[in-house]
């Protein structure tokens, strides 16, 4: 059976309150992955309330009008289910993995927290500390993450992609209960959610449960679109951080494209050509041949609005960041002049195809991809045309997207220079 044919088993339903449900039956193992994609991320935040979308990812586990703090996890685990959640600049995704016998309980728990979340002041204060601990772990004790936060905030001056998803420290300390309630009412409504189920289920059974548990939740207000468009950058921006540590870091970023841009497959193939694997171009040149970096990577976040494409590198202790920058800029200049070779493009296409097959070999991977295409690319069916879209990309299209992205005047350069720790 072809991949497109397996996708024919997918069924969708939109409830009267606007909630979209997508079901992909897969009976390989007696398990189910259910992902609720809430269409809110840090791009929907404003001054003073940065980090709120991520904070909700935490609060959604902290009790409802009917259930005390911790009960969500206790009930789900006692029925064989596990869960997690993540927040990005664009979306907040709640993930449950469970045996098929737990399906109704999961609907009950998920719909309850979408409709009846509790805001207990003491619980909020403790969770504030937990989130601050997460910020210390992920950002403040990590030089690459700290540099990335600064590059993102420098590359964007107007669009809310400048906001770090975990939030600025002063905002984490200062949100009010009113901010939380307002955010919940605005964004956590059925018409702002896409529910994806993959696994040992039948669509009719899922739709009946969806009607029963989500049907009674009223539609929320229409959400405000992000209106701000980042003005075109007209010259290089540069920032330097000096911080205790051992290895210099460089991150260069250019304004790029959005997830639904038709050039997205070409940019992903270019990313593969530049940094995916030991044969990739920038790895060969900067790590293996010229030994200017210990590690080099690159990528972009596929979102609703055009985000940045970053190349980031860890340098050896004492190595020169300007030598690295010069070599990287030279190679990118060569790229936009001469493009990529047919061999490089063919290799990248094989890598993308194999990675696609690995992605759709698990319930988790299917739920992730289905949600990404449904929410960020606008239609889940694009998942099934994606392999063909990648196959058709030409070397000329890769060159065109490289020329559109790697413009020196659209560049932000971040450098982290380590200084020896002060002894005690």
């Amino acid at each position, binding site marked *: 059976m072809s991949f497109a044919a397996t996708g024919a088993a997918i069924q969708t339903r939109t409830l009267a309150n606007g909630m979209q449900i997508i079901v992909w039956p897969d009976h*390989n193992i*007696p398990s189910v992955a259910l992902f609720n994609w809430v269409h809110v991320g840090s791009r929907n935040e404003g001054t003073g309330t940065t980090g709120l979308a991520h904070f909700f990812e935490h609060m959604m*586990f902290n009790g409802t009008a009917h*259930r005390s*703090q911790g*009960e969500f996890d206790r*009930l789900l685990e*006692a*029925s*064989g*289910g*596990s869960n997690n959640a993540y927040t990005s600049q664009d979306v907040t995704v709640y993930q449950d*993995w*469970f*045996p098929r*016998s737990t399906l*109704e*309980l999961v609907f*009950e*728990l998920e719909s309850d927290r979408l409709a009846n979340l509790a805001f207990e002041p003491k619980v909020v204060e*403790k969770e504030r*500390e937990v989130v*601050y*601990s*997460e910020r*210390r*772990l992920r950002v*403040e*004790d*990590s*030089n*690459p993450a700290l540099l990335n936060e600064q590059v993102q905030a420098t590359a964007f001056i107007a669009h809310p992609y400048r906001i770090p998803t975990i939030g600025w420290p002063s905002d984490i300390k200062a949100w009010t209960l009113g901010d939380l309630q307002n955010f919940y009412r605005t964004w956590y409504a059925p018409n702002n959610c896409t529910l994806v189920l993959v696994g040992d289920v039948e669509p009719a059974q899922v739709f009946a449960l969806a009607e*029963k*548990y989500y049907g009674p939740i009223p539609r929320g207000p229409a959400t405000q679109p992000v209106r701000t468009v980042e003005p075109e950058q007209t010259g290089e921006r540069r920032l330097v951080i000096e911080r*205790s540590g051992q*290895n210099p870091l460089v991150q260069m970023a250019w304004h790029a494209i959005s997830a639904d841009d038709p050039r997205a497959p070409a940019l992903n193939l270019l990313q593969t050509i530049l940094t995916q*694997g*030991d*044969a*990739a171009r920038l790895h060969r040149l900067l790590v*293996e041949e010229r*030994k200017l970096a*210990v590690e080099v990577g690159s990528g972009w976040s596929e979102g609703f609005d055009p985000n940045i494409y970053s190349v980031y590198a*860890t340098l*050896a*202790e004492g190595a020169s960041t300007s030598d690295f920058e010069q070599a990287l800029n030279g190679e990118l200049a060569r790229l936009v002049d001469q493009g990529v070779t047919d*061999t490089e493009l*063919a290799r990248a296409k*094989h*890598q993308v*195809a*194999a990675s696609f*097959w690995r992605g759709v*070999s*698990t*319930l*988790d991977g299917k739920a992730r991809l289905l949600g990404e295409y449904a929410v960020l690319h606008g239609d889940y069916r694009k998942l099934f045309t994606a392999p063909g879209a990648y196959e058709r990309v030409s070397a000329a299209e890769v060159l065109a997207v490289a020329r559109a992205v790697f413009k020196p005047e659209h560049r932000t350069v971040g450098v982290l220079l*380590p200084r020896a*720790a002060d002894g*005690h």
Partner: protein
Amino acid sequence: MVAVTILAAAGDGVAAVPAAPVSVDHVNVPVPAHERVTLPNGLRLILVPRHDIPLVAFNLLLRGGAQLDPPGRDGTAALAADLLTHGAGKRDAYAFADAVEGSGGNLDAAARGEFIQVQGQFLAQDSRVMLELLADAVLHPRFDDGEFEKLRARRIEELKAAKDSAPQSLLGNYGRARLFAGHPYGRPVGGSEQSLAQITRADVTGFYSAQAGADRATLVIAGDFEPARIRRDVAAIFGGWQRAQNPLPALAPTARVSGRRVLLVDSPGSTQTYFWLANVGVPRRFPQRAALNIANLAFGGSFASMLNQDLRVKAGLTYDASSRFTRGAVAGDFAITSFTQTDNTGRAVDLALATLGRLKHDGLDAAAIGSARNFLLGQYPLAFETPFDWAVALGDLDLYDLPESYIGHFGSDLVATDASAVRAVIDEAFPSPDNLDIVLIGDAARIREAAARFGPVTTIPLAAPNFSAR
């Protein structure tokens, strides 16, 4: 008991749904049909044909690993494994990477404490190329001098970079160096900055030629292939692999420590303290494995576990608190890991010790045992979805000489585990809070006083090039 609690709490809508699978047949994950062949040179081959997606996965395990590193040269096995894929047969490092990536495959080699593993996945149409590349890597590595120097330098820099970006990832290296001092389990698998600097190319080639051999290897291939053809190809390609020069030495047993002592790893300016509380646990072949999994899940293996509830949910002291057993041919470590804001270090460690004390004293009630059992029953099938999962799982069984029922009857073993078995495991496998090796990575000037409450303190700088105070 548990089912009743859930039904009452979840309301009418859930009453029709049983909280846990009821039949023992249903709770077990069936091990897929597979064949086993041993080649005349001793190579053990396991074939698991599955045709649902057009991929073939492999997992080659070479017994030995970092436990055989020469004294003072920790990281030798890791460098040898790394170099297997950086030039082999007629291909230099670039040509090898190009051949793997050009067919959309992956092929990665890494050393572990007790073995070297070479794993990967290719499109089904490329299974012959896959076997040839794998055989080149394992039978004909070049250990090119330039590649050796580059990789060694890179691994040293990566250890430094980990200190700037993820100090918690090094807790185990510091902790094991002390807990297992003098035993191979105490050596950092990837080496230290100091030991890597000592290693020569001759150490690496000497290690590999002495330790690699067909009779030490198990190769599992799983996925979309025709067994007769793969069997023929493997015999042709791997048939000439020699046996290892010597028998594999047995590992000495490990011993628990008594009392408490603290290793303080000084990271000036760090905003929080990362901590590790450990003692020697149990080996891989520990017979009460279902009870052990239940007990550790309930104590520190999930979000609703005692540790995470006490430190994160109730106290707001951390983002994460957990515990795990590392189980090898002999007993590895049991460790509690968490982190907290610098000024809360004493409070968080106190709380972790108190939670461990509560487990040892009170044990687990029926609800906690039932919940952990159901969680494991519900999550277990998700670990066996893909051909790659089966290649890893069957290789692991072969390596530790475990029966298929280790996977296939795990569900019924969980169902059969009662409260007394769990109590016995808590008594036997979990350490007392009075007997722990403690590692704290944090700002010594601010936490030294708190650290001293937990035992005699030894301090080393995070920037030092090795993981022990010696």
